[in-house]
């Protein structure tokens, strides 16, 4: 099954009186359990792509199907719902809430939607999964960079999403810690999670099963691309 299918996605911004095209008809497919890297220089449109795939933004034209459901036309609240339920985010800067401890940060998505089971128990399991079971009560400023990213990964996992979106997950980490994080993501993929990772680092992208290259708002490596006219 395709977790992600996009058909001719276009996104343009109006800046002053000129129109900037960030995406110029992008069509991709990602299967369940795949680990896909999206590479490209800055300005290539990979962040815009990531925002649309993450339901934070909507395309100007084209279709985006997540788990075979068209979500390019959803309302703001419906997109919030999809983000809460089906998508987990991992950011370069971790984006943990400083006043919440590790466990509370992980619980956060569970509070914004209907989820089975006991929230703190699920959060605690997610924290164990990333190997930080004993750090539950620590606040982000009491954790190392690698530990913070593990907490962020646990937060992305806790709702059991269809898709994990990682935006430069190792960008703020030293290479040793970065390698640990990549190893964790590879493990998660092996367990059946679908991961789409945005990066500009070829060495990081090498961990993925497949790499899509973007340039000037288009996918430039031809293989496995479905171009819909």
């Amino acid at each position, binding site marked *: 099954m395709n977790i992600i299918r996009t058909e001719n996605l276009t996104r343009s911004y109006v800046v002053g009186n000129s129109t900037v095209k960030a995406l110029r008809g992008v069509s991709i497919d990602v299967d369940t359990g795949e680990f896909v890297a999206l590479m490209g220089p800055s300005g290539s449109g990979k962040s815009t792509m990531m925002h649309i795939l993450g339901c934070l933004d909507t395309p100007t034209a084209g279709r985006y199907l997540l788990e075979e459901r068209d979500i390019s036309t959803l309302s703001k609240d419906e997109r919030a719902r999809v983000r809460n339920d089906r998508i987990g985010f991992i950011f370069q800067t971790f984006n943990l809430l400083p006043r919440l401890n590790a466990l509370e940060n992980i619980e956060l998505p569970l509070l*914004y939607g209907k989820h089975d089971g006991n929230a703190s128990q699920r959060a605690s399991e997610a924290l164990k999964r990333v190997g930080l079971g004993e750090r539950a009560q620590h606040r982000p400023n009491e954790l190392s960079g690698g530990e913070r990213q593990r907490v962020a990964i646990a937060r992305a996992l806790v709702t059991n999403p269809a898709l994990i979106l990682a935006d430069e997950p190792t960008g703020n980490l030293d290479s040793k810690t970065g390698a640990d994080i990549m190893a964790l993501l590879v493990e998660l993929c092996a367990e059946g999670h679908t991961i789409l990772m945005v990066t500009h680092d070829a060495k990081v992208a090498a961990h993925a099963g497949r790499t899509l290259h973007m340039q000037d708002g288009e996918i430039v490596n031809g293989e496995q691309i479905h171009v819909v006219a």
Partner: protein
Amino acid sequence: MSLLNTLLTALRGISSNLLRTALTTLGIIIGVASVIATLALGNGARASVEANFRFLGSDQIQIDQDLQMDKGQMKASGKPLTYEDGVGIPEAAPLVDRVEMKVSGQAKLRHGRETEDLGFQGTDAGALLSVIAEGQVQPVGWPTDKALTPEAFIGQGRFFSTAEVLGGDSVCVLGYQTALDLFQGDDPIGQTIWVNRKPCEVIGVAAELEAVNVQDRIGTRPNEGIFLPISFAIQNLFSEEPWVTVIAHVKDESKMEEAKAQIASYLRERHGVTQDADGTYADDFHMTTKQDVLGAQLQSAATFSVLLTALAVVSLVVGGIGVMNVMLVSVSERTREIGVRMAVGARSRDVVAQFLLEAILLSAGGGILGIAAGVLTIPLAAALNQGAALLDPRSIPLALGVSLATGLVFGLYPALRASQLDPIEALRYE
């Protein structure tokens, strides 16, 4: 997000900067305290009228002689308000059901070799009912839950009758202590005493009385005195025509002003009071109702209340703007947090709820402190308003409501602004 979680999140938001929070609520504290004090003033005025004029029923008009200072003595201005004036009122003023009258003065009492110089009261036969209505004294040891009757005030003999009042009979009722002083333990009933050299038969002795309020028991002498029929007193105990105090009972409480007008026109005619050039009357009497006294008290409280109300409004607006300001700062400081919350699934309404609840908690906290401050301010307000300020219990929920409303109104804009943030921009915010 559930209400409980929203509440916990909002509480966490507030507690992150306690000093700023406390300073923000100062305006609300002052505003709410002013609301409490304002209402306490009105309430206090009402309570003080209740306490000081409880003997004056709401269906009663008290008519008094208008007095002037003349060479150090209080003198009647114009013609004295006479017993005959009072007697004619029910007929001349159809709204008046009946009148009670009394005079008072000083008299010298003598029996054998014992003499007493004391205050007397010339009254109607129903004087003891008025004593009960005034509620100042009771028989010693009277149980609080037992209703008083005129009979309970009589220790020996009886009170004088209406026939004796109309006939101007020379009879009297003595105070408990006065009887002891004059008769030294002998039975006074049926004996004759001399009141200002007029003979007068003792027909009754009052029971031993005490002030109802324990704190009034020192300094009052309820057992010294003498009651005489008003007609006898007027004829025998004054060198010139005395003025009387008239209590007029009005049939319909809703027509007090009409009743006053009827009485006034009757008395003006009898006293020859004419209209001045500017349309007013130089009355030689004045009339008082409970509503008048209350009105005057409320008037004096109102001047002060206007200032306090203005202070309350200004403070609440300033306080509300303070809340709005601190919430805008908070939204801006926590832009990234808002972005994260939106990314993990917070809807606009979740964000609105979080920040709105924070604003409301902030102002409610100020409201609670303000209520405490207001209650503590009441003694000060009382000192500035002749002791009349009393906490109005209704003012507490009102003040709390006002502070909650302030939080709601002034927190809405920052909360809406937070909810309209673009999550992508918010996540990038440094």
